[in-house]
C-alpha cells in the first residue's frame, strides 16, 4: 500500500490498472471545530464505521466507498491543533501518518480561522505525503467579507485547495476528483518545501545527510525532512521510538549551536517559525474587510457568559438537557419494556408450551433470555437521547462554554469543566453518563469523572429509597431522600480529592481550550453519531448484559424447583455474605441476597426483597389476549408512548401536567413489602441500608459501559473495590454511630 508501489504500478500500466481495484487510503486531518466530522459525514454518510483507535479511548471513524469506479477508504484522524507529541490525539494522528503512509491527506482548514489552521497544514506538508486542502466553512468566511486568493494559496503551498461547505455538501465532488487526480499522478502533487530560517535549513540538511549515511534504515522508514526536524526539536516520542539518545553527539552539537545563536529552546523556535510561515501565508492570501462587524457569537456570549446570568443560564440549560434526555426517552423505554415482558413473553410461552418444552426451559427463555434482552433494550432510548443532546451541545459550541462556566468548581475536585455534564446525567442513569465522558479529551479527566459518576444517585436507586422511606420516614420522606443525594455528592467531592492525591497523582492536565463560534449542528451528523452509538451499545454491550442476566437467572432459580428462596444459589450466597453485613445492622440473608441481585440493577434490590419477603399470591389465571389483540396493543401503546414523549417536552417547560399512574395492585404489593420491612429493619438500619445501596458497586450495565468506554476492566475494578469499601465504611459509621448516640 506504500506510495512507491503505487507509483511503480501506475507507470507500468496506465489503462486497466490492477492497483485501481485497491482502495485509495485517504487520511482526513484538521483542527477541532474545523467541520471535519461534518465533512466526513457528508461524504461517507451511513457508510461510516465508528470504532476506537487500538489501545486508546479515542474514536476512530472510517468509511469505504466507490467514486467513479475507484475504491476510496477514508480514515478520520482525531482533531488536533498540531502534530506535537503531547496529547493522545496528536500522537495517534501523527503515528498514523508516519507509519501507515496514507496515499493522500485531506487537510480540513477552517476558512474563517486561516492562520491557526495553517499551522497544522505546515506540519502536514513536512510529511512528504500529497495533501489536498478542503477550505471548509467557506460560506461563513464569505459572509464575513473575507476574500481568499485560492490560486495564490495553491501556488504557495504546492497543493490543491478546494473550497467546501460541508453542511451544504458543496465542493465534495471536486474534493474527491482532486484525490483521484493526485493518486493518478502523485509525483507532481508532493507539497512544496516551505523555507525555515537559513540556520534551521542548514541544520536540517546536515541532520538529513547524517541520518542517510549513519542510519540508512531510518532514512527509509521516516519522511526525512520531518524526521530531521523532530530530531532537532528533541522530540521524545520519536527518540524513544527509534531508540536513539538525545545525546547523540552529532545532533547534540547542532542543537547546541542553534540554541547558542537563537537563545531559546528549539521546540519553541520551530513553533515560532511555523507560525511565522502560517502568518505570512495568511497575509498573502487573505483580505479582510476594514471594519469588523460584531458577530453573533460575541453577542450570545455577552449574555451566556455574563457574570450574573452565566450560571443561571448554564443551570437552566443543564436542567433542560437532563429533562429532555430522560423524559423524552422514558416513555419509549417503558413501551419497549412492556412489549417484551408482555406480548413477547406470552408468545414465547405459548410457543414453548405448544411444543411441550420442559418448565425450566420456559423459565430460562422467558425470565432469563427474554427478560435479559428486554433489559438491554430499555437502555437504548436513553443512550440515543443522551448521544443526541451531547453531540448537539458539542456541535453547537455550547459545550466549551459549559466547561468555561463550571471549570472553577470542577477543578477544585481535580476534574475538568466539561466533567459536569456526565456527572449530571449520572443522576438519571449512570450508564449514559459513563458514555458521556467521551466529551473529555484527556484520559485522566475522563477516567476520574467515570470513577465518580456511580456516586451520583441514579434513578434506579430511587425505588429502593421510596420503599424504605415510606416504611420508616413517611413524614420526612423528602428530606431523607434528599440527604442521600447530598451524601453521594459530598462523597464524590471527597473521593475526587483523594483520587487526585493518590491514583492520579502528578500534574493535573492543563485547561487550554478554544471557544469556537456558535454554529447550528448539522442534523445529518447528529443522526449518524446518535445512531452509531445506539447500535454499538446494543450489539457490544448487549451481549455482555444478556450473558450476565442469564447467569443471574441460574443463580435465582437453581437448583431447579426450590420452594424456598433460601435454598437457591442466590439465597446461599446471601447466607455466606450476611455476616460481613452484621456490623452494618442488616446482616440477614434476605438483605444480603437482595444486594447481590442488585448487581443487575439497583432497583432489583426491591424486587428481590419483594420475592423473598412477600411470596406472590397465586397467579390469577388471566385470559390470554389473542395475537391480533397483542399487535393492536403494541401499536396503540407505541402511539401513546410517542404522545407521552412529546408531552414530556412540554411538561419540561411547565405546560402539560404529568400524571403518573400506578395500578392499585402495585401499591398494594409495595405496602405489604413495607409491612415486612418494618419488622426486619429499624429506622437506623434502614438508613444504613439505603446508604449502602447508594454507594455499593456499580450495576452490571454501568460496569459494561466502563469496559466499553475504556477498553479495559481496570476502571471497573477500581470502582468496584473503592465503592464496596466506601459503602461498608459509611454504613458502618451510620449504624455504629447511631447506636452510640442512642438511635438504635
Amino acid at each position, binding site marked *: 500500500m506504500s506510495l512507491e508501489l503505487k507509483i511503480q504500478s501506475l507507470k507500468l500500466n496506465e489503462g486497466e490498472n490492477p492497483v485501481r481495484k485497491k482502495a485509495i487510503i485517504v487520511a482526513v486531518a484538521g483542527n477541532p471545530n474545523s467541520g471535519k466530522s461534518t465533512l466526513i459525514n457528508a461524504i461517507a454518510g451511513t457508510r461510516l464505521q465508528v470504532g476506537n483507535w487500538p489501545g486508546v479511548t479515542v474514536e476512530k471513524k472510517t468509511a469505504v466507498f466507490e467514486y467513479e469506479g475507484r475504491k476510496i477508504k477514508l480514515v478520520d484522524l482525531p482533531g488536533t491543533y498540531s502534530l506535537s507529541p*503531547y496529547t493522545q490525539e496528536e500522537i495517534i494522528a501523527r503515528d498514523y501518518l508516519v507509519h501507515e503512509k496514507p496515499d493522500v491527506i485531506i487537510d480540513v482548514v477552517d476558512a474563517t480561522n486561516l492562520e491557526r489552521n495553517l499551522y497544522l497544514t505546515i506540519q502536514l506538508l513536512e510529511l512528504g505525503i500529497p495533501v489536498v486542502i478542503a477550505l471548509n466553512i467557506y460560506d461563513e468566511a464569505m459572509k464575513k467579507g473575507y476574500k481568499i486568493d485560492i490560486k495564490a494559496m495553491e501556488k504557495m503551498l504546492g497543493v490543491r485547495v478546494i473550497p467546501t461547505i460541508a453542511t451544504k455538501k458543496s465542493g465534495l465532488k471536486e474534493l474527491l476528483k482532486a484525490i483521484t487526480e493526485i493518486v493518478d499522478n502523485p509525483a507532481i502533487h508532493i507539497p512544496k518545501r516551505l523555507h525555515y530560517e537559513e540556520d534551521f535549513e542548514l541544520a536540517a540538511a546536515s541532520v538529513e545527510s547524517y541520518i542517510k549515511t549513519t542510519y540508512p534504515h531510518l532514512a527509509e522508514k521516516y519522511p526525512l525532512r520531518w524526521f530531521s526536524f523532530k530530531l532537532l526539536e528533541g522530540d521524545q516520542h520519536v527518540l524513544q521510538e527509534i531508540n536513539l539518545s538525545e545525546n547523540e553527539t552529532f545532533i547534540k552539537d547542532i542543537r547546541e549551536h542553534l540554541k547558542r545563536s537563537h537563545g531559546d529552546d528549539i521546540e*519553541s523556535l520551530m513553533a515560532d517559525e511555523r507560525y511565522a510561515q502560517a502568518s505570512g501565508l495568511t497575509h498573502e492570501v487573505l483580505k479582510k474587510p476594514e471594519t469588523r462587524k460584531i458577530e453573533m457569537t460575541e453577542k450570545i456570549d455577552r449574555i451566556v457568559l455574563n*457574570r450574573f446570568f452565566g450560571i443561571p443560564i448554564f443551570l437552566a440549560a443543564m436542567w433542560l438537557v437532563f429533562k429532555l434526555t430522560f423524559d423524552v426517552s422514558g416513555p419509549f423505554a417503558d413501551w419497549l419494556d412492556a412489549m417484551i415482558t408482555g406480548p413477547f413473553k406470552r408468545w414465547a410461552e405459548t410457543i414453548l408450551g405448544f411444543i411441550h418444552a420442559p418448565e425450566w426451559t420456559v423459565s430460562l427463555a422467558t425470565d432469563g433470555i427474554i427478560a435479559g434482552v428486554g433489559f438491554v433494550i430499555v437502555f437504548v432510548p436513553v443512550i440515543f437521547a443522551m448521544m443526541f443532546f451531547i453531540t448537539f451541545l458539542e456541535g453547537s459550541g455550547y459545550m466549551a462554554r459549559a466547561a468555561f462556566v463550571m471549570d472553577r468548581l470542577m477543578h477544585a475536585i481535580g476534574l475538568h*469543566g466539561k466533567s459536569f455534564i456526565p456527572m449530571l446525567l449520572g443522576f438519571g442513569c449512570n450508564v449514559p453518563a459513563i458514555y458521556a465522558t467521551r466529551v473529555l479529551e484527556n484520559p485522566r479527566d475522563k477516567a476520574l469523572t467515570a470513577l465518580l459518576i456511580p456516586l451520583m444517585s441514579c434513578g434506579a436507586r430511587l425505588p429502593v429509597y421510596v420503599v424504605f422511606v415510606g416504611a420508616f420516614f413517611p413524614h420526612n420522606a423528602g428530606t431523607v431522600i434528599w440527604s442521600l443525594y447530598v451524601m453521594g455528592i459530598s462523597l464524590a467531592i471527597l473521593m475526587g480529592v483523594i483520587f487526585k492525591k493518590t491514583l492520579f497523582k502528578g500534574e493535573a492536565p492543563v485547561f487550554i481550550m478554544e471557544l469556537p463560534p456558535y454554529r447550528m449542528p448539522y442534523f445529518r451528523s447528529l443522526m449518524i453519531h446518535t445512531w452509531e452509538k445506539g447500535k454499538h451499545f446494543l450489539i457490544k454491550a448487549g451481549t455482555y448484559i444478556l450473558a450476565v442476566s442469564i447467569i443471574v437467572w441460574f443463580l435465582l432459580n437453581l437448583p431447579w424447583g426450590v420452594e424456598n428462596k433460601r435454598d437457591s444459589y442466590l439465597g446461599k450466597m446471601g447466607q455466606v455474605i450476611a455476616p460481613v453485613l452484621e456490623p452494618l445492622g442488616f446482616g440477614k440473608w434476605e438483605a444480603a441476597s437482595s444486594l447481590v441481585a442488585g448487581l443487575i440493577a439497583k432497583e432489583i434490590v426491591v424486587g428481590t426483597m419483594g420475592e423473598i419477603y412477600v411470596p406472590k399470591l397465586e397467579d390469577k389465571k388471566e385470559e390470554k389476549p389473542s395475537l391480533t389483540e397483542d399487535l393492536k396493543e403494541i401499536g396503540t401503546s407505541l402511539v401513546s408512548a410517542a404522545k407521552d414523549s412529546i408531552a414530556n417536552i412540554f411538561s419540561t417547560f411547565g405546560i402539560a401536567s404529568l400524571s403518573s399512574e400506578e395500578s392499585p395492585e402495585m401499591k398494594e404489593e409495595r405496602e405489604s413489602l413495607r409491612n415486612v420491612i418494618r419488622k426486619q429493619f429499624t429506622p437506623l438500619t434502614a438508613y444504613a441500608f439505603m446508604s449502602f445501596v447508594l454507594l455499593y458497586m456499580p450495576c452490571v450495565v454501568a460496569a459494561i459501559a466502563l469496559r466499553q468506554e475504556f477498553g479495559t476492566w481496570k476502571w471497573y475494578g477500581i470502582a468496584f473495590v473503592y465503592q464496596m469499601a466506601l459503602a461498608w465504611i459509611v454504613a458502618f459509621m451510620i449504624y455504629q454511630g447511631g447506636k452510640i448516640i442512642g438511635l438504635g
Partner: protein
Amino acid sequence: MNLSMLKPGEAGKITSISAIGPLKRRLMDMGVLVGEIVKVEKVAPLGDPIEVTIKNYNLSLRKKEAEGIEVEVVK
C-alpha cells in the same frame, strides 16, 4: 505584569512565556507566542478561567496558566 492581571477589555503584547514542557508547547500550538497581542475578553462567572482573543479566535485558560505569560499592556 502577567496575563492573569489584565482586566476584561485590556490587551497586552506577550513578552515572555515562562511555562516549560508540554504546557509551553500546547500554548505555542494554540498561537500563544512572544510578540503576539492578546486581549482579555471575559472572566468566568466564578472568577476562573479567563477568555482571551488571540490570532483572531477565542481561547480560554485558567489563571494559573495565564500567570506564566508575561505581557506589557498595549493601548
